[in-house]
């Protein structure tokens, strides 16, 4: 069985280490290996803690988001080898705490593409901390929040989290959102939380402000041609990769169950066939988080590609 990896990201000073330290204090996370990039002011007292120097390997003429994080790959491989030899406790989960400026995409890429790493590990989810006092300070923190499956709004004792929560829900409505002060979050809320159903979420379709990153949701009534979708999405990510931070959704490709699509920037998980739809509603819905496009632009274009496939 593959060992789940939880990625904890968040901007400088947003409370990542406090959150990780508090989580590790829970008895159910005793069997967790922790990889950090920096040992900050908040100490993590844990029996299986390793520190790695962030080392990004640019591959060929590739883009930055799809670079391989060599440090992380080395450490993950080493952890498995040491576990097999009985040199470290038999951990059942890994938590990776990134630096505050880290781009989550290369880490996701490493977990999905490095042969030994993907054989032994699976990405369980991305948790991003955003502090209520400073919010989304730079584009790095926007990228981190967009990549998240779960968002933790920290320092809620210091500032009213209301405006930030509103902004985050516009940016990444699919992520589960938890409020926290001093890292007081139950592990189950971050590690085992259910996905939010895109149909139950509210999307703001009003014109976006220039350069504003936000989520739009495509809903398609009939089945979509998978070949057309693959061609369309790869072309879109090549043309507008810098502006598409996240793609996630369920596609009706005419099979019994939906096809699960999940990508962070250019890095796309291998699509996964789910055995069945959750209910009778079989419409495709795909959430795009980014800037410079609206729902109508995406829908018109995808419909044209799909129609070309059926012509």
């Amino acid at each position, binding site marked *: 069985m593959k060992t789940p990896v939880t990625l904890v990201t968040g901007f400088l000073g947003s409370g990542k280490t406090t959150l990780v330290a508090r989580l590790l204090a829970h008895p159910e996370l005793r069997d967790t290996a922790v990889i950090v990039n920096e040992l900050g002011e908040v100490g993590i007292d844990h029996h299986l803690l390793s520190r790695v120097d962030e080392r990004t390997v640019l*591959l*060929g*003429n*590739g*883009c930055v*988001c*799809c670079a*391989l994080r060599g440090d992380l790959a080395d450490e993950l491989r080493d952890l498995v080898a040491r576990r097999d030899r009985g040199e470290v406790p038999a951990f059942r989960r890994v938590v990776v705490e990134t630096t505050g400026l880290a781009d989550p995409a290369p880490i996701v*890429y490493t977990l*999905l*593409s*490095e*042969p030994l790493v993907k054989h032994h590990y699976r990405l369980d989810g991305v948790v991003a901390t955003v502090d209520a006092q400073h919010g989304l300070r730079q584009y790095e923190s926007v990228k981190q929040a967009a990549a998240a499956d779960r968002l933790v709004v920290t320092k809620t004792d210091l500032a009213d989290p209301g405006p930030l929560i509103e902004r985050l829900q516009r940016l990444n409505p699919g992520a589960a959102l938890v409020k926290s002060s001093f890292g007081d979050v139950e592990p189950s809320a971050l590690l085992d939380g259910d996905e939010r159903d895109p149909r139950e979420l509210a999307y703001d379709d009003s014109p976006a402000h220039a350069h504003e990153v936000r989520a739009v949701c495509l809903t398609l009534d009939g089945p979509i041609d*998978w*070949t*057309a*979708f*693959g*061609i*369309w*999405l*790869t*072309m*879109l*990510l*090549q*043309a*507008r*990769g810098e502006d598409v931070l996240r793609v996630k959704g369920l596609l009706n490709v005419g099979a019994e169950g939906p096809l699960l699509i999940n990508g962070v920037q*250019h*890095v*796309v*998980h*291998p*699509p996964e066939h789910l055995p069945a739809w959750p209910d009778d509603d079989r419409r495709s819905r795909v959430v795009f988080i980014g800037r410079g*496009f609206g729902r109508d*632009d*995406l829908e*018109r*274009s995808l419909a*044209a*590609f799909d*129609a*070309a*496939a059926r012509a």
Partner: protein
Amino acid sequence: MCVLCGVLLSEHWAEQEGGRRGRVFRVRLLNRVLAFYGLRLDDWSGRVWTLRDAKGRSVVVADLGSLWIEAERLAGRPLDPLDPELVAAL
């Protein structure tokens, strides 16, 4: 190279379905799009593709990711699927 190019992955994520017939269909559909930019794609031995422009320049591409990079280079302009003129042409 990024995952778009499929490097380090055994198969590009967008090409995992359909087998041989799917590959033929994919080339046909890609040519509908590429024709808008004056480009043409041909299957070469069922493993890679050759991409050509009207001047006769050609390049071998392995999968969808590298295809768009090379197509952009040969066309000399971005290939944006949201371009209203492309959408109308399809």
